[in-house]
Each structure stands twice: as C-alpha cells, then as structure tokens.
C-alpha cells in the first residue's frame, strides 16, 4: 500500500531509492536479509525474490527441498503459510520500509494469492516480459493469467503497486526502443485492468547517451498513455553478463546510479560484485546498496524527448495498439505478426526474425528488422553471420569494458569466449 508513497517522498527529498534482488528459502534468513537491507546506509526498499521452482508452479520440488534441506534460490512464498510470511515481515515491513515481491512467473496466480494473504501489495512482472524470455507458457495463456492477477490485486483493495519488467527483456541485446515499448505496453495493460500505482522499468544497456534517450522516451509515452496513474521509473543495473572483478562490478553499478539520477528516475535495482559468480550474500547486497546510494550524484541531463529511441518505441506501441481494441489480444496478435519480435528470444511465440547489433560506440541497434514496423523509422545495418564468438563478444561487451578499465590492461580471456 505504501510503496508508491515511500518512493515519491524520497524522490521529492532528492534521494534515489535503491533495492536489492534478494531471496532466501528460510524465513529467518529472509528476515535477516530484509533487516540488513533496511539498516543499510542508503534509502532502501526491501525485496523478496522467489525461487525458480515457485516461478514455474513446481511446488512439489519446493516441498521436497524444504523437507530435505536442499538450497533454493529464493523465498518460496506459496509453500510457506501466510502466517509464516507475516511473522517474517513483522516489525520490519511498514510505511518506512515497503517490501516488493519479485518472481518471474508467467503463471503467477498462486504467487499473487500468497502475497496478498501475507499482506504484501507490491510486485512486478508482466504478460510479455515474464512469458517470452522465461517460460514455455503460450503467450495468450500468460496474458490471461496476468489479467486475472491484476484483478486479484485490484480486488484486494488499497492501492496495490505493480512494476513492469518489460524494460529488461532477456537482460541484454534487445534494442532500447523495444524495451521501452514493451515496458509501456505492460504498464498500459496494468492500467486498463484497473491498476493506478505503477512503475516502469528500464534496464541499463550499453551506451549512457542512448539509455538517457530511452528513459526520456519512456517518460513521454507514459505521460501520454497513463494520465490518471501515479507512476515512476525504475532503472535496473545491467542485467546481462556482469563484470567479474569487484572494481568492474562497482564501476558498472555506479554508472547505473548516475543513469538513474541523470534521468530523474526514482528507484534503482542493484547488482552486486558477486553477480558474475554466484547468488550474492546479504553483506554483498548491502555493500552494493550502499555503493549505489553513494554514487547517486549528479544532475539531470538534458535529453531531447523527440529522439531516435522515442520514434522507434512510438512506432512499435502504435502498431500494437492498432492490432486489436483489447490490449491483451493486441499483444498476442502483434507477436504473431512479428510487430513485436525480441532478438535471440527462443520462445515459440516469438517470430525470431529481428536481430540486434552493437555499433562502434556501443549503441544497440538493429541488424535485421524482420516484420517490425520500423522501416523508414529505424536504420538497420546488416551484421555479418552470427557465430558463437561474435555473440559472446556482444554478450560480454559491458563486462569486458568494465573489467578492462578496472584492471588497467586488456583481459582477453574474460567471458570464456570459446577458448
């Protein structure tokens, strides 16, 4: 209930809200993680990240793991009774420390029910972003599931908060205009299902200037399409292959914080120095939060809102809205026709004809448009044939850039690029 109010209050005071992605199977450990997040020397909100069995509705495997002490990669909110989760949160969650549930499910009804039963009303995801990259669930089924979940949230009353995950499709190598378009479409999907407290995500990509254009585009489209909602922008620190050196990881995270500040974004999801290697510990999360908080300096950048990312995003959003009066149907139709097409996405409902490329400045653009409605809007420069090593060098571009800078000499072996 208090998520948007907290973020708005901090933003008005000139503070960037920073947030981990953190989840542990054991309620005691989860509570300690939230308490440490709250205590961190930064303006924080808490996160309960769920485990990946819960994400695919495999509660039997969760049950087996809990009974046999097998480690899980997150908090199994469906298997733990609501009373257990409420006790875990008691005295920690509140108006001064809201907590968001993060999951990744294309079939999230049980998660929403469990969350609401435990008194939590802030979560994230979306019918596209939690289906295409992460599941084999047919897109039309994911759309229906997410419609139902929006209804569950609205029925729960109060002012539930929902964040789009669309600004992070596949984590990397999706051109910013398509990230913006999907984030906006998911926000509009939530809006039309009755949500009025929304945040829109955008994940840091490969070029600061282009990322600033993207956030400006995101803001302009939201202002046009969500007139009666309260919404804010959440930046994710780079979601692709993360630097392997602690110095490289911190330099990239610092850039994410400065991206957030320079675009007037209200919240930042951090990544840790351990990210490239394993699931981070609580102290590693705390130090990432504090580093991000301390790096959140600088001023608003002047960005032309009628920029290339905006023009492309606008064309994509328009094409989808013109596909069907019902936005859920429109999204399904758009993917069927290739009007939305996520490069490198393996899901059967993705056309798989569009391709992205990095130019010499690290700007992310198109090499193949497929059926995207971007002819005459976007330039596309056909790249060479994609091989395992050209793909790896694109995937590790950011990692390599920051690790190389950190070590002050070239590290040719980084990324395990087929050597």
């Amino acid at each position, binding site marked *: 209930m208090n998520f948007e109010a907290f973020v708005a209050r901090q933003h008005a005071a000139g503070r960037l809200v920073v947030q981990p992605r953190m989840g542990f199977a054991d309620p005691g450990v989860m509570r300690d993680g939230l308490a440490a997040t709250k205590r961190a020397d930064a303006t924080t909100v808490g996160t309960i990240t769920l485990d*990946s*069995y819960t*994400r*695919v509705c*495999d509660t039997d*495997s969760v049950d087996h*793991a809990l009974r046999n002490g*097998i*480690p*899980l*990669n997150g908090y199994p909110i469906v298997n733990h009774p609501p009373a257990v989760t409420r006790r875990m949160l008691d005295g920690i969650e509140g108006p001064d420390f809201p907590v968001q549930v993060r999951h*990744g499910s294309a079939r999230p009804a049980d998660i929403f029910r469990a969350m609401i039963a435990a008194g939590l009303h802030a979560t994230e995801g979306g019918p596209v972003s939690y289906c295409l*990259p*992460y*599941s*084999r669930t047919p897109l039309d089924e994911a759309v229906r599931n997410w419609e139902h979940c929006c209804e569950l949230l609205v029925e729960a009353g109060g002012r539930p908060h929902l964040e789009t995950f669309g600004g992070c499709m*596949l*984590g*990397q190598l999706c051109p910013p205009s398509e990230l913006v378009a999907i984030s906006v479409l998911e926000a509009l999907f939530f809006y039309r299902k009755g949500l009025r407290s929304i945040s829109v995500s955008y994940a840091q990509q490969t070029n600061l200037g282009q990322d600033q254009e993207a956030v400006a585009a995101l803001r302009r489209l939201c202002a046009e399409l969500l007139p009666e909602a309260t919404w804010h922008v959440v930046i994710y620190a780079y979601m*692709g*292959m993360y630097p392997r050196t602690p110095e490289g990881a911190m330099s990239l995270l610092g850039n994410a914080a400065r991206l957030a500040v320079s675009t007037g974004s209200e919240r930042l999801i951090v990544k840790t120095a351990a990210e490239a*290697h*394993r*699931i981070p510990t609580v102290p590693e999360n705390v130090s990432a939060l504090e580093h991000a908080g301390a790096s959140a300096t600088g001023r608003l950048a002047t960005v032309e809102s009628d920029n290339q990312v905006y023009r492309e995003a606008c064309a994509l959003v328009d094409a989808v809205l013109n596909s069907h009066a019902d936005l859920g149907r429109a999204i399904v139709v758009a993917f069927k026709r290739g009007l939305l097409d996520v490069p*490198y*996405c*393996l*899901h*059967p409902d993705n056309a*798989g*004809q569009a391709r992205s490329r990095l130019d010499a400045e690290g700007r992310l653009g198109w090499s193949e448009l497929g059926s995207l409605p971007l002819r005459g809007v976007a330039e596309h420069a056909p790249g060479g044939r*994609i*091989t*395992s*090593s050209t*793909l*790896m060098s694109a*995937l590790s571009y950011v990692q390599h850039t920051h690790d190389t800078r950190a070590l002050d000499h070239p590290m040719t*072996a980084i990324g*395990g*690029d*087929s*050597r």
Partner: protein
Amino acid sequence: MSEEVRAYGGGVVTEPGRSTVIVSSMASDSHTWNLVYLELLVGELGFDVVNLGACVPDELLESETLSRRPEMLVLSSVNGHGYQDGLRVVQRLRSFPELRSLPIVIGGKLGTGGPLSEEQTAELLFAGFDAVFDDQQGAAAFRRFAAALPGAATVSVEGA
C-alpha cells in the same frame, strides 16, 4: 511436442549425414543466452542442433531425446538448481535402455553458492553424466569433448 521446438536462427536445419545434438535447460531454469551460445558453438562443430529452450519439463526432454536419437545431449543451467535438477533428470534418462550409452553432459552455474564441490561433481558423474563443465572452466573443455564425438566435423575449429 515437436512444434514447440524451434532451433535458434530459423528452424531445425538438417543436412544429410549430419548428426544431431540436443541443447536444453531443465524444468526450473529460464536462462537462454547460454543455450543460444551453445547452439551456435555446437553447430560450428558440424552438428545439427535442436535447442529445447527454457524451462524444459522432464517429459519433453525424454520424448525429444528418445525420438531424435541425438549424438549427444547437453544440459545447461545457470540458476543454481542445476545440481539437484541434473541428478534427477539424468537418472530418469538413464533408466531408458536406449539412452544408456548416449553422451549426456551438464554445465553452467550448477549450485547456489558458486562452483560445485568435488563431491557434488562426483555425484553428478555417478548419477550418469559423462562430463560436468563448471562455469569457471569456460567453453574450452566442453568444445574439446564435443569435437571428439564421432559426428563432429573434421575441419579445424580453432579460433572460430
């Protein structure tokens, strides 16, 4: 189920005489960049690749492996449940007499706490994997393993 299966790059390309390798995640893992990369890498070694994609249920993995009779099955996971999921899956697959001698390998980030212990690696091998490629090793060891299979291209793959 095979309409669910679409190899990256536009369909399963079959060339006469080429053998097939299946690349797959396991049921709870949604990561796919590793699979896209492996598809290209294994294709460059001269195999047709069937990429089963994210969150592959055990039953689909079994039916695809039984019906396609690949030269190798590559399981890749980075979400930290690979160790326990791998143990389960390989024991199920090895229970089919037709799959007893199929090369089955696993790799990636297989535990929630960093590299697997020697004991965990030994357990995966004991359960039926022919090789375990930890994330820290990079792709070189896997590439050598795959290049030594009977169906691999004989051309040099160095520097690809």
